[in-house]
């Protein structure tokens, strides 16, 4: 089935595709697509490039030094809308993973009674000092989840706290040193903070939004427009890799062994493998097998580029004043999320795709996000920094 289409008009426009990734557990499907040779099955070759920072990766993507990247979903939309950089038309080819990020607080906070969101809120209300929380990028997933979680507890992230950006690999050290009170980031750095004894996991990202979108496979819009066959092959290969990883704990462990190498994530195998297999320990004596851990496929549902996912990030950018005017939410998501190309790739890889473009979720504060009336949703939060829409 697979060899037949790579001839004639379906042939990939370019065979070597340069893809940037950050050393995080959730780059696994991209790495395994290369390691398992799934790229060559679809007539392409992945040239994976380990990046140092999200902004550096973004710049290389915009300059054409990278064709595509393992990128924060929120960051991609931030570039589309020109937040902190020149607005550039971007394309989201697929969602790479769901769940599996974490919120970690310092043990010192726990000793002061902040062992959950309510406890933290109580501590903040006492007003003895301002608390500092870190995320990985101002427009990215972790910044939005952290802000959402704090606000859900009645804490204004912009007034009652100070948010800072810290590289993921430096989170654990900064927490242990007392430079910050907590952070939201991906793995294995959150597990590291707990293992190092500097902090405890107060919530997982799936606690905030069950089955939330994670990293996306992003590219410049003009690259996708010029290379649709190559992009389709890329998505198909990564879909197969994600499906392989999700198949069993053995596959997950094998992926962890690959990721542990310094060429990829370069972290302790234990730190990577445990939470990848859903085995959590929170640093406060609790251990459990999570029913909704990091997933790369979930029978395709984790990969579908739902328009409502993209729009959620737009609403949160709007909510916190990163977008000063209301965007045309549906139009932006419709042009960024390449649903048509995804469906073709899913067909190639034998992956089922939902028929709808929106999905409905209930988040930690009980609010429903279903993709409908996004500006009203953005304006519906008691804690926000919205600039009102001009009349």
């Amino acid at each position: 089935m697979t060899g037949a289409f790579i001839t004639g008009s379906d042939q990939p426009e370019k065979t070597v595709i340069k893809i940037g990734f950050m050393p995080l557990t959730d780059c696994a499907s991209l790495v395994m697509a290369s390691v398992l040779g799934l790229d060559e099955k679809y007539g392409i070759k992945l040239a994976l490039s380990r990046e140092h920072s999200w902004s550096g990766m973004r710049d290389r993507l915009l300059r054409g030094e990278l064709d595509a990247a393992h990128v924060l979903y929120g960051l991609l939309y931030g570039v589309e809308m020109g937040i902190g950089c020149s607005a550039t038309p971007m394309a989201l080819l697929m969602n790479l993973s769901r769940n599996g990020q974490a919120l970690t607080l310092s043990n010192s906070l726990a000793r002061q009674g902040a062992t959950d969101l309510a406890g933290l809120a109580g501590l903040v209300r006492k007003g003895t000092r301002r608390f500092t929380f870190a995320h990985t990028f101002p427009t990215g997933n972790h910044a939005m989840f952290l802000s959402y979680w704090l606000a859900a507890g009645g804490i204004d992230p912009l007034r009652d706290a100070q948010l800072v950006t810290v590289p993921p690999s430096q989170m654990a050290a900064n927490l242990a040193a007392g430079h910050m009170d907590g952070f939201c980031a991906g793995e294995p750095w959150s597990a590291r903070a707990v293992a190092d004894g500097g902090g405890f996991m107060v919530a997982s990202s799936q606690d905030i939004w069950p089955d939330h979108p994670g990293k996306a496979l992003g590219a410049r819009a003009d690259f996708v427009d010029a290379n649709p066959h190559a992009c389709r092959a890329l998505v198909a290969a990564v879909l197969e890799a994600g499906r392989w990883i999700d198949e069993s704990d053995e596959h997950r462990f094998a992926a962890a062994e690959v990721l542990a190498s310094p060429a990829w994530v370069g972290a302790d195998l234990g730190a990577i493998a445990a939470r990848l297999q859903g085995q959590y320990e929170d640093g406060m004596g609790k251990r459990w097998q999570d029913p909704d851990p990091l997933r790369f496929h979930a029978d395709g549902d984790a990969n579908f580029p739902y328009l409502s996912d993209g729009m959620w990030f737009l609403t949160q950018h709007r909510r916190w004043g990163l977008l000063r005017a209301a965007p045309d939410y549906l139009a932006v998501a419709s042009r960024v999320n390449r649903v048509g190309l995804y469906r073709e790739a899913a067909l190639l890889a034998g992956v089922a795709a939902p028929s709808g473009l929106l999905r409905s979720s209930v988040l930690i504060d009980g609010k429903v996000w279903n993709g409908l009336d996004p500006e009203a949703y953005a304006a519906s939060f008691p804690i926000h920094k919205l600039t009102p829409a001009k009349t």
Partner: protein
Amino acid sequence: MKSPPQRTLRIVVVNTAPGGGAGEEAQARRNTALRIGLLESGYDIVASLPADIFLPERIAQIQPDMIIIDSESDARDVLEHIVIATRDEPRPIVLFTDDQTASSMDAAIAAGVSAYIVAGLQAERVKPVLDVAMVRFRREQKLLDELSDTRRQLADRKLIERAKGVLMAKNRLSEEEAYQKLRSMAMNKKLKLAELAQRVLDVEDLL
């Protein structure tokens, strides 16, 4: 009109975080070459800051005109925070890399970003790069000055209109006659029209 005095650019250099490894060593070398180049070119390095969690706070306190950081530094994202927080008053952030195939600065300027990627970091190459960054920085300053000039002109115009109105009412003059009276008095007293207008209004307030 006299142009405002050119003051030296206040530059902050961000140092790579210590940690060892080939990447960090290369960054440290680039940073040293950069600082030598800056000093040789006569720039004012106000501070050399570590790339740690306190960087945004320190930069907020120092308020430099320009921030220079290695493009391979993982502290780039920390700076991103500052970029967004200060997007109404952007300052040039200059990025340095050894990458010889880096895109031209023209592309960066055309894209409207205040960040430049430069190939190579030999001391003698530092000055031309910063010259371009400074040109752009000054162009932005000029635009801001023009903006404040325009605002002042608008304010002056309003003063003159009000002074005309006072003369027209008090001395039963037509608009043209009032304007001519203001003009000739300004010339006689060697005052700017707006200054005289202000005096007319001040007297009007007194009486």
